[in-house]
Structure formats: C-alpha cells, structure tokens
C-alpha cells in the first residue's frame, strides 16, 4: 500500500520544488524589468550671456574601457567638443593709428551628446573577489570625466587647437576690419595656451 503511493509523494515533492524554483526565478529575473523609471518636469537653471567665438565643433563616438576601485566598465559614448575664444576683455596694443588685437586663450568644452543612445553601457564587471560589487554613479562619473580630460588633450595632439586658432584669427579679422580697417588680429601662441591635462573645463 505504502509502496503504491511513494512514487506519487516523490512526484508531488518534485513538482513543489520545481514550482518554488520557478517562482524564485521569476522574482529574480524581474529585478530590473519591474523597475519603474520616472522623469520630472524640465527646470530652467540659468541663462548666461557671453561673447565667445566658436571656431571648431567635433563629434565623436568614444569607446570607454576603464576601471576604478577594481570595478570595470566598457561603454560607448557620443561626445561633442567645442573650441571657443572669449571675446570679452580682449587684449590689444595701440601703435600709431592702428590697433592690434591678440587672440585670447582657447577654451575647450566637452559635453555628452543629447542625441538618442549617446551613452551605451556594454559591460561592467568587478575584478576583485568575490566579484559582486556594482559600479556606483560617483565611480562611473569619475571614469567619464577622466575620459573627457583625455579627449580634450587629444585636441592638442591632433592639431585641432592650431587649426581652430588659425580659423579664429581669420574670422575675427574679417569681423573687426568690416568696422575698422586699421584693426589687425594676431596670434602669439598658434599651438595653444593650455598644456594638456590642465586645459579648460568638462561639465
């Protein structure tokens, strides 16, 4: 009699275990899927006035593979870079009846593009035992700022700064001589003012 039912009991127990495992798996797998993402209203923070000449715009897809505190990330980032010159408080020299304007130092600004899928995280992993740690937003932002600094430095190495400065001299000369033919624009530092790693700001 007992033998007759033992198979049924075992089958029932296996069915129960399978059911529990399935439910557990469902809950585990739904960890991200069941998460809700909400976005607040847009808020205007600031309007700044300025007079800056922008002579170069660069858009790049940059691969990021870097680590911080033993945590690694591999991602693709679309970046916008700008070379600008602040025209307020220009330095000038007056000689006889002519004015010579000196091209100011370049400002390199780097931003992440606002286009769709500008930042795509392909892989993240923890290289330290036991390997369960996740990268925090502070660590991720630090890696991305490091990438932005390297990106700015590359503008000097690739000759973008030299090219942007030459173009700025041309544009500024044309603009100012339209109003006063005695104005001359010169560039005392065609290679750029800022040495790599100390150049400009990244947001």
């Amino acid at each position: 009699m007992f033998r007759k039912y033992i198979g049924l009991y075992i089958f029932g127990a296996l069915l129960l275990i399978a059911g529990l495992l399935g439910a557990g798996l469902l809950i585990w797998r739904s960890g991200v899927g069941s998460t809700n993402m909400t976005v607040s209203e847009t808020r205007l923070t600031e309007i700044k006035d300025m007079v800056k000449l922008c002579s170069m715009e660069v858009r790049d897809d940059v691969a990021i593979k870097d680590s911080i505190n033993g945590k690694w990330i591999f991602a693709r980032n679309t970046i916008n870079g700008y070379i600008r010159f602040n025209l307020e408080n220009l330095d000038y020299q007056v000689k006889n009846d002519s004015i010579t304007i000196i091209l100011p130092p370049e400002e390199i600004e780097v931003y992440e593009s606002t286009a769709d899928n500008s930042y795509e995280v392909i892989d993240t992993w923890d290289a330290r035992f036991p390997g369960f740690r996740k990268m925090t937003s502070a660590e991720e932002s630090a890696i991305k700022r490091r990438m932005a600094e390297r990106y700015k430095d590359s503008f000097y190495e690739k000759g973008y700064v030299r090219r942007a400065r030459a173009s700025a001299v041309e544009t500024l000369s044309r603009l100012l001589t339209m109003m006063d033919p005695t104005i001359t624009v010169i560039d005392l530092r065609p290679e750029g003012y800022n040495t790599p790693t100390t150049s400009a700001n990244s947001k």
Partner: protein
Amino acid sequence: MNRTLRLLWCMMVGALLTVACTEKKEVNVFHELQDVQKLVLAEMSLNKVGTISDMGAKGLDAFVNEFKFGDRIAAYSFHTYIEAYIDLGELRDADVVVDEKRKLVKLTLPPVQTQYIGRDVGVTEEHYRVSGMRSQITAQERAQLKDKMSKSLREDVRKNPEYRSMLIKEAQSKARGFFSILLKDKGYDSEITFRN
C-alpha cells in the same frame, strides 16, 4: 592518424571562433569635425531629475514586487545646455553701412539661432536607497534613465517655445551691447538690427 588530428584541430578552431563571434558586440564609431564661425551670445542650462524605483509598477510587475524583500529607489539629475549664436559666415560687407558725416554705423546681423550643445558627462546622485535583498542600481539602468530624461527634455523644449525665445532675446541684447560698445570706442553711434 594525421587526418584525424587535422580534423580535431579544425573542430577546435571552429569551436573557438564560434565562441569568439558570439561574444563580440558591435560598437559603431563615427567622427565628425567642422570648422565653424559662430559667435555664441547666450547659453541656457536646463535640469531634469529622474528616478528608478519599484513604485508605480503595474500588472504582473506590481504583483511580483509584493514578494520582494526591501526597497530599491534612486534619483539622479544632470544639466543640458542650449546655446544661442549668430553665424558670422553669413555676415556680408553690405551688412555694415558707415555714415562718416553722422558718425553712425548701421549693422545688420545674421539671425540668432539655437542649438543643443550637449549634457553633463556625469550624473549627480540626488538619492539612493537599496535595502533588503534588492540588487544595486546598475550602470546600464542609469544609462537608460539618462536617455529617457534627454528625450523628455527635448520634448518639453519643443512644446514650450518660451525657452528658445528667452534665450534668443538674451542673445540679441548681448550682441547689441557688445557691438555698440565696440563702435562707441571708435567714436561711432550704432543702429543694430537682426535679419529674419
């Protein structure tokens, strides 16, 4: 014997190649460099806050959330920047008319245009609370949220033209101030207008 070894070798290489191919993920790379002649006159910064949480989940997700131990909520923010500029490449000689008798310069500037210059590279963590058995927020989730926030911001700006008109007004006022001072220094009064 040799044929068997060669066959084995081919099978091993084939298997390795299959593994390598399946794990490879394509990364599209593009590069675009442009010489421009933009006189940037104003910049606007806009802020968004986005949250990742279990609250607000619907249907099966809401039911499943009831069985989870702990909470999972985080809020992030970043700034997006829009600039207003005039394209100096569109400035023609005829746009500057000098009246030496009256010491007056009539300057017609190209129209003020706006463009998104980008958003912050990093994000600011405004709040983070993950408790119980819940998993930490991942970089992938943050990237998805950032994308969603940018889409929503662009939509907000598109629906509300006030953002751009405020920026354009600020830029026009700055341009008038800058050029009138420049001409005043040379002893000229000025009349500054913008092309449509």
